[in-house]
């Protein structure tokens, strides 16, 4: 597993982060670059990618200062733009290939950019802030490199990076998947949540509760919920802890059906980020906490999850409790995670409310153990009983994706079921979703207060029905293979589904 073998296919993808405010003068252009992947690309090539991007951003912002440039579709490549922070841009360049694997939906790629940036912000704060702390950019660069490479390693299948492609068109990044619970269980859950949050004393604490890889409850605002949920599913839930192979969430590996993730590929992921560490800004990267590094979390004896990511000042054997930044309150919070069987509880306490650091944290943890562990196991039992397993949300005959954009919630057919769809159906769905994306972004600028109602039914080449519906902030995508040929049948199927599973949200 050498450097050469990994870097051989890096041409598929280029990924950069740059700051428009830096390197304004000739000869200082390199200063702009905060991150570039692949790092071994010669600087002139890096600069040419960034230069093109910068030029387009500057040009388009003349017409549309609010939202300058979203994508460049070149003949061979697509350039996906994301403005992470004012003047800080992330650009991803993906190769358009005749090979069908490389049919991209730009929105899905942009969501990858957004996700990595949000997670970065959660652990390290904003890039701008880090730049202000260290104007040379050294700190930011080293942080970005380890972080983004750790993040990208999750997309590693075999030796290739598999970014979300048409095969993932029944998935939606940047949303949470929720567990459906009965009223009684929901009340028990809420009761548990209140007890847990009361353990923080007078400080405003928040919590997030997951069952398996599904969200059960949150008291955080939607953005923070998504971030913590994402992180939990990536690294903290029982699935994430045991190995990454059995996860069936949309974040799960092996998204294109190749589920053969072995230990060696985990090592590959580890070495991936090691190998690509830049040597141009050589610093001691070992001092940088790498929250996304694999296999660093484990379950402690008391049920709380422990890690060896964050390093203590005095070389303690146990790693100190990680600190995260909340977007909503812009507060620094200690992050504690407790796990009981399938139940994972994330609990954040304001750093300002804990007076004596780790001691204070362990006092809070003890309080949680005393007051809530019984309730925890009760809730876990209840949820386990009511849970239908990995295919709980499979609806036979349908392959669907349901998005509630208001709440950032999605639900989809299980990946194993989606994998049974024909390639053509998925390609059509991707096309359809691209159309809807365009339509949506138009309405977003036209009338932000009003959701667009939308109904599209397409008969694909392989006679499958590919359907998109949108109403009042809810979106439904559906593929019906082996269905009757009339459009009436298709719309009936949608209505049935809507009445049964969406409380009749998509009415005719």
């Amino acid at each position, binding site marked *: 597993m050498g450097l050469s073998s990994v870097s051989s296919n890096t041409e598929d993808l280029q990924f950069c982060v740059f700051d428009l405010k830096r390197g304004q003068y000739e000869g200082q252009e390199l200063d702009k670059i905060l991150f570039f992947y692949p790092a071994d690309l010669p600087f002139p090539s890096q600069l040419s990618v960034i230069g093109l991007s910068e030029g387009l951003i500057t040009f388009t912002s003349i017409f549309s200062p609010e939202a300058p440039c979203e994508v460049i579709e070149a003949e061979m490549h697509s350039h996906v733009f994301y403005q992470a922070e004012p003047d800080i841009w992330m650009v991803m360049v993906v190769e358009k290939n005749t090979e069908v694997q490389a049919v991209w939906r730009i929105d899905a790629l942009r969501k990858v950019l957004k996700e990595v940036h949000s997670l970065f912000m959660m652990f390290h704060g904003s890039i701008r802030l880090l730049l202000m702390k260290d104007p040379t950019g050294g700190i930011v660069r080293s942080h970005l490199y380890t972080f983004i490479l750790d993040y990208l390693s999750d997309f590693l299948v075999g030796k290739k990076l598999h970014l979300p492609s048409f095969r993932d068109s029944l998935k939606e990044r940047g949303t949470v998947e929720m567990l459906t619970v009965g009223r009684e269980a929901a009340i028990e859950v809420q009761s548990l949540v209140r007890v847990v949050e009361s353990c923080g004393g007078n400080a405003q604490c928040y919590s997030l509760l997951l069952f398996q890889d599904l969200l059960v409850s949150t008291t955080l605002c939607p953005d923070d919920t998504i971030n913590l949920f994402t992180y939990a599913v990536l690294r903290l839930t029982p699935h994430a802890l045991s190995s990454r192979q059995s996860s069936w969430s949309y974040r799960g590996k092996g998204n294109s059906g190749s589920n053969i993730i072995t230990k060696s590929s985990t090592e590959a992921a580890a070495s991936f980020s090691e190998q690509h560490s830049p040597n141009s800004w050589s610093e001691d990267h070992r001092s940088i906490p790498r929250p996304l590094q694999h296999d660093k979390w484990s379950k402690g004896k008391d049920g709380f999850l422990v890690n060896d990511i964050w390093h203590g000042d005095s070389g303690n054997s146990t790693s100190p409790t990680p600190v995260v930044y909340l977007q909503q309150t812009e507060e620094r919070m200690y992050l504690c995670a407790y796990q009981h069987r399938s139940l994972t509880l994330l609990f954040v306490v304001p750093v300002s409310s804990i007076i004596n650091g780790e001691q204070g944290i362990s006092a809070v943890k003890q309080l949680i153990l005393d007051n809530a562990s019984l309730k925890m196991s009760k809730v876990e039992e209840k949820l386990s009983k009511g849970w239908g397993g990995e295919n709980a949300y499979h609806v036979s005959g349908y392959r669907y994706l349901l998005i509630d954009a208001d709440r950032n919630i999605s639900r989809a057919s299980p990946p194993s079921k989606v994998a049974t769809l024909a390639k053509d159906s998925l390609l059509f769905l991707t096309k359809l979703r691209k159309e809807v994306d365009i339509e949506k972004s138009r309405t977003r600028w036209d009338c932000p207060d009003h959701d667009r109602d939308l109904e599209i039914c397409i008969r694909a080449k392989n006679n499958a029905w590919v359907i998109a519906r949108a109403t*009042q902030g809810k979106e439904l995508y559906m593929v019906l293979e082996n269905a009757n040929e009339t459009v009436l049948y298709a719309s009936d199927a949608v209505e049935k589904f809507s009445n049964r599973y969406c409380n009749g949200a998509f009415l005719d």
Partner: protein
Amino acid sequence: MSAKASTSQPVVGLSASGALSHAYIKYPPLRCNIPESSGLFYDDGNKIIVSQANNQVFSWKIAPFTPAIAPTSDSISEGPILSIKFSLDGKLIAIQRSNHEIQFQHRETGETFTQKCKSESESILGFFWTDCPLCDIVFVKTSGLDLFAYNSEFNMLHLVETRKLNVSWYVYTHESRLVLLASGMQCKAFTGFQLSSVGIIRLPKFEMMMAKAEANSKPVLASKDVYIITVYGRIYCLQVDRVAMLLHSYRFYRDAVVQQGSLPIYSTKIAVSVVDNVLLVHQVDAKVVILYDIFLDSRAPISAPLPLLLRGLPRSSSIGIRSNRKNGDNSEANYLSDLEAIIYGDDWNFLTPDLICDVSNKIMWKLHLDLEAIAASSSDVASVLEFLQRRKLDANKAKHLCLAMSRTVILERRPLSMVARVIDVLVSSYAHSLKTGGYFKGARSDKMATSSAPHENILAAGCMASASGATITGKSFEYGTASLEGEYFQASASSGTDLEDISTAVYFRTDTNIGTGKVPIDTGIQKIEVLPPSLQTDHDGTRNNLSGTSVSGMQEPQLTSPVISPDEMYSFVFCPAEEEMAGDPSYLVAIMIEFLRSASSEKIKVHPNFYVLTVQLLARNEQFAELGLFIINKVLEPSREVALQLLESGRQNRQTRKLGLDMLRQLNLHHDYVVSLAQEGYYLEALRYTRKHKVVTVRPSLFLEGAFASKDPQILAAVLRFFSDFLPGFSHTSDHKIYYHLLTDITMAPVT
């Protein structure tokens, strides 16, 4: 009495209640003082006290206990009287004249006849009337029981049955219908019979425990050392063991007598009373009383020993002012000061269950519990509430105390787990009363019912704590609850703010936010005092102050049970708490969730107003994401009220408004849904929905006005077109004309 004088009452009350006690007797007593009378006889079957003078018997009803009651009198023939008991139907008077004969007199006709012992060797120990179907009266003789039936035709008794056994002495209470016959050298072997309305049950023989002081001495059990008590519908026997200084308890089941453990005693003279199912053990020598609640197996006293107090005694200085007592002079003052001195005097006779007869002064006292003092003496709120929830006699006060205490724990922001326990107690008590049928809205029972009901329960070996609530007379009090609706009512604190300053003013709020939101004020809860009205029974001069509860209990209808319904929890706990708790409502939300958890585990329905309040709290704190979670998971059950509150609370938050819309749709409230959709600007969606669900109640002008206001000619045109196509005759209405012109105006506007 004038209203002015009544205002001075709380001051009078304060003087007595200032001292600490958990049980008290209340001035004035019932005076059975007839000139030249001799002897007081207690007829516990009829709950009357009987005195005789000059060939007359005077009888005072003591249930319900009203000190001012006048006696009724009957004339009888001359002769010695050992005891007097009226028949249960009140037609006959039975007078035991000697150890061998009992004389009967018909009250209306005055006819008499006499029943004598057959042989000289046996003597009559006593007798009692019974409602057993077999017989009417039972003679207890040294040779056993004689059961007689009364034949009204021939005006005589005829023997129905005889139970032969040696009897040294006996104890009987009408309450338990149980007669215990003592026999043997030490009088500690017992045979029991229950003569209940279903027949005669013979209990297995049993022996009581007697500790020996020395090897050879064998103490003899006396009848005054054995008490039959009825608690929570169960029958116990308590026996004083002077040597061991213990009070042994035995519980009677149909087929067994089981020893239940012992209570320590601290006085050679002991008396036992039962007030509202609480056992009072009077340590007469020590002049203190210890309270036990033997509902659970715990033998721990409710609280520390405290003296029995006389309350409501007017101060000697105020006697002059009290002009209503005609003989209010020095002798009266002396009399009053005497009363204070005689607590646990030698002449006190303790009558079952809760009366004290002062033989020498010829007065009767009734024992009362001071629930507030008991409640205040324990810091374990949950167990105090459990105790209060079991109180039936003064259910009003118990209920107010429960409400006040639960409000207080919330306002004091006690730990969540502790408040959760408090809520669990109240909710499970309510659920239990629902199951056993003890909770009826508006149903009342007089106090008589509670004391006469439980006699059957020896049959049910299980504990039926609520049995006494079964005989509920449907007597309803015509207190206008309608007057409570609509506005804010202030409950004036009737006394000093002893406990909590929060109790001085409690606002009862009716929610006017919602069109149909009628606050669920249970007819039984509150007649809130505004000013002391004439209803007040001032003659007894003992308006005992309710320090903690802020609402006077005097003028409220009698409740049978202090259980608190979810609606009352909402109105009197959560609403006041919400108003008084400033700042972050998340603590209150947490409490409300605990309440929901408790209610859902007991499968109790919660009123929509409760959910509405939760929505308000969450929205006020801008916890819209959580609110959404609550709605989606149906933690807050869907209802029209909740939906409208979501629309209202979501004015600043579109997601929340949408939740309200979705809820209306899911509830099939078509009209509300369509109107709300139109208000949100979803005209076309609303119209499509109208057509699909055939909603005909919405006026076209609503859509037309909205569409016109949106200034979008496409929408206006679409709406017009819709009505033209689907509403027959629309094209001839004025609406059509007006808006058609407006539409052409708009579309022409850019040109001109």
